[in-house]
């Protein structure tokens, strides 16, 4: 998604830290919703999807209930299609359950400007009328441009505008870690 060359600065999170953060978020989701009735997880493509699956797995271990998991492609809802250099590929949205009346937890890897979340909210609402929508992210790196705030955060990472946060997951990148990079 980012353009230009990157220099690796520091590892913010390793596999263990990621596992603990997701376990904590799983507990928080159960606590906040007083159980898991009507709770559905929706991952934002690409890396929100494996994260949503992992959260569902943790919640199943804790509560013994398998939550429905969907994936959302927000490409057609982006507000920057005319300004970005590389046109993103449109993928499928796969939400195999009715969102109407559900308590949806949107899952993404990083929250930055909030524009992805804004697009995801539009995409989700076009599928029906959820009872509530909550937001879970692995990393909150600040610099919001919209009034959007995550409900569950794995780790807050203060960053500069010249830095880029890369979340790598076993499912998509072969390794679990979060790296802070600098744009050269």
């Amino acid at each position, binding site marked *: *998604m980012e353009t230009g060359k990157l220099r690796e600065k520091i590892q913010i999170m390793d596999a263990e830290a990621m596992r603990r953060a997701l376990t904590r978020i799983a507990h928080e989701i159960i606590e906040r919703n007083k159980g898991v009735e009507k709770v559905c997880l929706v991952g934002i493509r690409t890396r929100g999807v494996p994260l949503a699956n992992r959260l569902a797995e943790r919640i199943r271990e804790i509560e013994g209930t398998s939550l429905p998991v969907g994936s959302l492609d927000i490409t057609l*809802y982006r507000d*920057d*299609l005319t*300004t970005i250099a590389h046109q993103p590929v*449109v993928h499928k949205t796969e939400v195999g359950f009715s969102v109407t009346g559900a308590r949806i937890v949107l899952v993404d890897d990083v*929250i930055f400007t909030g524009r992805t979340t804004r697009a995801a909210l539009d995409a989700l609402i076009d*599928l029906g009328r959820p009872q509530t929508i909550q937001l879970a992210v692995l990393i909150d790196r600040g610099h919001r441009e919209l009034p959007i705030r995550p409900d569950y955060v794995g780790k807050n990472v203060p960053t500069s505008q010249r830095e880029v*946060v890369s979340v790598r997951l076993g499912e998509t990148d072969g390794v679990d870690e979060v790296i802070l990079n600098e744009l050269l």
Partner: protein
Amino acid sequence: MFLDELLQAFFNFVHPALRRIRPKPPNGRPPRAAKGVRSLEWKRKDLLGLEGLSAEEIHLILDTAESCKQIYEREIKKFPTLRGRTVVNLFYEPSTRTRTSFELAGKWMGADVINVSSSTSSVAKGESLRDTARTLEALGADVVVIRHSAAGAAHQLASEVRAAVINAGDGAHEHPTQGLLDLYTIRERKGRFAGLRVTIVGDILHSRVARSNIWGLRTLGAEVTVVGPPTLVPREITQLGVRATHDLEEALAGADVVNILRIQLERQKKGLFPSLREYARLYGITAEKLESAGEDVLIMHPGPANLGVEVSEEVARDPRSAISGQVQNGVAVRMALLYLLTGGRAQDAVLG
């Protein structure tokens, strides 16, 4: 003697446009060569034909269309993607499904769609294509979809305007969006192209659908046979890498896909075949004649079908027929093209 005249007519009809196009494809830079992976970026300004598109480009369009087709499962059929964009349908020839599916595709993607048809516009006052193009440009069209009876009309328009141009059929040359929706339908039902045996039946001479299909299918590695009466199958067609025959039974034997062309009554000069009834008897596709084709043969027809002429009603309603599915696929393919052709241009942005 008669045949020579026909060939000459075919050359005059199709060839001048081809000759003009071949040396330098006017639709933008050639795509980056992909090394084993699909090139994921669309670089062309226009979609003028399937000739010259790479396999990667075709698959990118079909992949995007597959995602767009999901709109049929939705209660609210609207994406905000093309909000504020204007799509102009400029049709110099009649059309129902191509025009309406472009209109639906544009509207479902959030664009404003304007229809201009020759009978109700200044075209009827004698305005030239070039002047019409300038007017549309000045009005702020982002995409112009053009159908015209002259081969090469879309290419000319594309060189005149900054807007993206989509060829919706130019003479007997190409009809790329129909070709793409046929490819989509084949990929959806058969899952592959390599080695697939595709038979195209009917009026090959006048058919832009046939030509677009042939270019696309050959690029993707399918084996193509064209069949029809000798007067409607030009000998030169074999230069496109297809097998030509006049024997329907032989052409259907073992076919995986049968694409039946419409007998274009409006384009039919008198005397190319004795009568519709004779055409139907010799080349009309009936359940009986289909028995020699593969058991799971896919039957396609670009529509509108003359039932009882090129295809029997029984075959058109057969479960192996994709004729109604093709219409939905047409909207999906056109949505994909509108998305790809209006895509990213400037330099910077990081989304998070």
